[in-house]
């Protein structure tokens, strides 16, 4: 576990994640108070990454549950392995007849089989899914419940027992309590408002797009090979694009993709043509592309004007 907020920041930094003090405080609190964290914010700001880095920086195993519409207990918690049970009954047919030897009447035969019930409904035939895995894990773990907003409201209610008491109930086996309380991270893109009951059980962390300085630091950390000037320009452009009314606002991951792509192309500085060619790395809708292009034209014009007043040395970049 972490020893202090600074410790969180340091260990996250070692794993290439720049955690602001606010984020680090929430992580530290979660590890101290053993509370789940509900991370919200626009797509592409590193919500899922947060969980991954948390696991990595503690050396814990990460167990991930991806939510989707129609996800149910069977997929999330456990399932009985019917086929395996069936196979065992077939193999053990002889044994069953042994059990039934001397049984008088159907009732007694059924009773005898019923007495053996727990053989078939034991942990041997349970197929653990992510939630059960996290609860019964021998090692402490980080449980990521990704995009909880995609799951149905019923599933959310089902999670409540797990999140507040760290236990789950399998009717045939009874209640299973966690050996190690996992650190739980839930992420949501706000497609749907989470219920108050869920929110009450969680610490709430809202991650917004980073400001310029932060984003620049992230780019430098993740794409160290990128030219400093290029990184700065890309960040400036992306920051200004976020201010536009786009259908899908570019996230940090898009910024990184773009910087990587441009670096691969051996580019040191943005120019009009390149921007047009590579714009689809950051903007994903046709309408958005149009808007972004307008904005970028403006940007390049501004840069050109500024450079014009400086020196003539940058001629090669913009012609």
């Amino acid at each position, binding site marked *: 576990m972490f020893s202090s*907020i600074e410790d969180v920041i340091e260990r996250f930094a070692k794993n290439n994640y720049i955690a602001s*003090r*606010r984020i680090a*405080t*929430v992580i*530290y*609190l979660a590890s*101290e*108070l053993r*509370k789940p*964290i*509900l991370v*919200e*914010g626009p797509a592409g700001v590193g919500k899922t990454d947060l969980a991954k880095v948390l696991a990595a920086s503690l050396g814990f195993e990460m167990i991930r549950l991806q939510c989707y519409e*129609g996800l149910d207990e069977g997929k999330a918690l456990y399932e009985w392995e*019917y*086929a395996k049970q*069936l196979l065992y009954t077939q193999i053990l047919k002889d044994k069953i007849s042994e059990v039934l030897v001397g049984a008088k009447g159907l009732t007694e035969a059924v009773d005898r089989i019923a007495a053996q019930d727990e053989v078939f409904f034991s942990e041997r035939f349970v197929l653990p899914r992510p939630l059960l895995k996290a609860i019964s894990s021998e090692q402490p773990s980080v449980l990521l419940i990704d995009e909880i907003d995609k799951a*149905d*409201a019923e599933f959310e209610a089902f999670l409540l027992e797990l999140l507040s008491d760290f236990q789950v109930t399998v009717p045939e086996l009874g209640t299973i309590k966690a050996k190690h309380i996992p650190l739980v991270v839930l992420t949501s893109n*706000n497609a*749907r*408002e*989470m219920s*108050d009951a869920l*929110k*009450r059980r*969680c*610490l*709430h*962390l*809202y991650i917004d797009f980073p400001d310029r300085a932060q984003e620049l630091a992230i780019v430098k950390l993740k794409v160290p090979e990128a030219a400093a000037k290029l990184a700065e320009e890309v960040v400036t452009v992306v920051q200004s694009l976020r201010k536009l*009314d786009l*259908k899908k606002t570019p996230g940090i991951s898009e910024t990184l993709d773009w910087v990587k792509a441009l670096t691969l192309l051996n580019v040191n500085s943005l120019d009009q043509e390149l921007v047009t060619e590579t714009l689809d790395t950051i903007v994903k809708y*046709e*309408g958005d592309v149009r808007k972004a292009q307008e904005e970028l034209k403006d940007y390049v014009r501004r840069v050109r004007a500024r450079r014009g007043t400086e020196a003539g040395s940058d001629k090669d970049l913009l012609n």
Partner: protein
Amino acid sequence: MQEKLVEFANLLRENGVRVSLAETLDAFSASEVTGLAERDAFRAALRATMVKRASELPVFEELFDIYFSGLGEIIKQASQAVQNALSMSDQEFQKFLDQIEKMLQKEGKNLSELAKQLLQNNSGEMERKIREAARAVKLSGIERTIEENYFARALARQLGLDKIEAEIKQLREQLEQMDIGSELKAKIEEYLERRLKALDDIIRRYVRMEREKRDIKQKEDQRLNQIGEKSFYYLTEEELKKMNEAVTRLAQRLKNVITVRRKRSKKGRFDIKRTLRQNLAFGGVPFKLRFEKRKKEKPQVVILCDVSDSVRNASRFMLQFVYSLQDLYSRVRSFIFVADIGEVTECFRNNDAKEALDVALTGDIINVYAHSNFGYAFRNFVTDHLGAVNKRTTVIVLGDARNNYNLPHDWCLREIRQRAKKVIWLNPESRNTWGFGDSEMERYAPHCDLVEECRNLNQLYRVVDRLVAG
């Protein structure tokens, strides 16, 4: 500290942030982990435990600033102002305060606690005293600006300001007889004067701050409510923006309800035949259950939206609503008309809301500068697009039914209704003007299943409620 946190939680609640008891308890334990010394961590701890909605974050930030640095900050600023007035540097001021303290030890035996703290610049103790007094006079009940004076006076009385005044006056008299340089004497005299004024200032600003605390959310709420009741016709630019948000939320709400409903009906009845067939492989033991698949009945909507001049502002909203609806259902066909009628489904699908609305309203699709002619539009719809309507379709007409004395052709609407599941007419005009002048509402209404006045957001909410219920 706990007391302060409870009070803060109450304050958040008063401003519309939902903080439960459990969350307040979490805030206790969280603040114990981070401690109070480091402000950012403390703030983050409260933020993570008490605020669970991104939309409530601004209120929290503002209140936190007011509450946790509020009074302390005011006292600090007041003291800074005194120092500035005496034009001393930090060092000089500190030295000067030491002198004052010495003097007080000698001369100020009969000074009250608060007066001493005031003169010695003991801000922590002062803050405590003032908060105590504020509780005594129930300052937290302040609501309106005009109450500021009253509470300021009450607080001053509670603190014993007049007594302090007298004490300081006495101190000045003693000062006269003291054997110190005249320059220092003047300085001290000015200091006493300023300090007294500073306390008055602190009280006033504190009272105002308390009032503001209770104001932040109130204003916002009032505003939204007002917009809700305000007719679509008279909205300012900023209100339009707010309204857009509200309409989107409305559509979202509709969507939530519909998704839950569709989910519930997903599984049909137990299907014996298919179950047996599927489980033949297991010797007829039914390991896998099969259910009849219900046919999904996809709701179909056809929208006819009047975009003539007379309803321009309203139709923008109606279109915004149409746009959100179209985002929501896969089978919505949207038409706009003035006299001509044109389909905008594709245009809405491919553009974002603002662009789509612009395209629809600038006359690229139909001539929007003509005089409205509902009859003509309906007849054209029946000839060209009647195929869009079948027995699963809900037809929604948005318009004021002002037909410029043209032929109403209400038989077209009857024809549409015969084919459709439901016809709903939303009229942005006030109900008591229907049927007067060139309004053909009376003629059209018998052919509709539901006719509603829909001239502001609250009414739109009600209509949506009814649609969802039906």
